[in-house]
């Protein structure tokens, strides 16, 4: 078991390229990909001559992480988040794009990009933060942190869905005994 767990073994990508829900009329775009994130493309999606501010958030793991997803449900949740933000900020939010990476994300590469354009910068910062919080709270994507002796699935918060776990701190790892057997 120890040799097998020495290095993360990437699970096979479930699809190629980007799986996305593009709503040109609503000016929203959400996507999932196993490829390196194209931050410039995300920014270009939200540029608007009417928007006075573009804010970009880039999530970067500080350890090697592996992300898995339930793609159709994650895309549905992402679409719902951007639609909610769009309608709650109709007068100011011009365009919004969220793309999350899947599979192994090595240190130094990007795990998520959120780009949005607004009329004024204060709203851009606020909406970007709100968007990130909703994504972390709702979207059906899971990260596994790798150690020399195996991996541990993380949770952004306990009891996000279903019943609460014992404990209550954030970033609570799933009990190690759950994980011992399969990380090989």
């Amino acid at each position, binding site marked *: 078991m120890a040799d097998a767990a020495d290095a993360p073994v990437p699970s096979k990508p479930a699809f190629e390229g980007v799986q996305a829900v593009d709503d040109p009329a609503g000016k929203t775009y959400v996507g999932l990909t196993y490829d390196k994130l194209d931050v410039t493309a995300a920014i270009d999606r939200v540029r608007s001559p009417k928007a006075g501010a573009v804010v970009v958030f880039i999530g970067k793991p500080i350890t090697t992480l592996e992300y898995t997803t339930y793609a159709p449900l994650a895309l549905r949740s992402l679409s719902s988040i951007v639609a909610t933000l769009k309608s709650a900020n109709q007068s100011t939010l011009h365009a919004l794009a969220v793309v999350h990476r899947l599979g192994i994300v090595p240190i130094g590469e990007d795990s998520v990009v959120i780009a949005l354009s607004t009329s004024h910068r204060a709203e851009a910062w606020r909406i970007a933060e709100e968007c990130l919080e909703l994504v972390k709270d709702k979207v*059906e*994507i899971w*990260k596994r942190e790798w150690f020399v002796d195996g991996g541990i*699935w993380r949770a952004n918060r*306990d009891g996000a869905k279903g019943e609460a776990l014992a404990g209550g701190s954030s970033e609570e790892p799933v009990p190690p005994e*759950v*994980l011992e*057997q399969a990380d090989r």
Partner: protein
Amino acid sequence: MIHGEIEIRGVSESAECIMASNDTFTVLYFAAAATYTGKSSDAVPGPMPVSKLFGYLEGKYPGFRKKVLSSCALAVNLAYVDLVEDAGTEINNGDEVGIIPPVSSG
């Protein structure tokens, strides 16, 4: 003959998958649930009320309920069901049921 046995098991598993839409529904496992079961999905004989599913899976994977399922939500055909309010909702054959552990994107 041992080699032959392994092959037969492979055949019966794929046969189970093919039958999924007629006599069974599909249960998908993610993250800690996939790690615990050692697989990404199961074909479960249906129909079955929502309230019976975790018990059925506990029978198949002892300890699963306490260690993993107790913190999981359930999505039937991409819509979340409430484990209490929707306990009587029937899962039909051909349905896709996702076991959803606490999420951790970002």
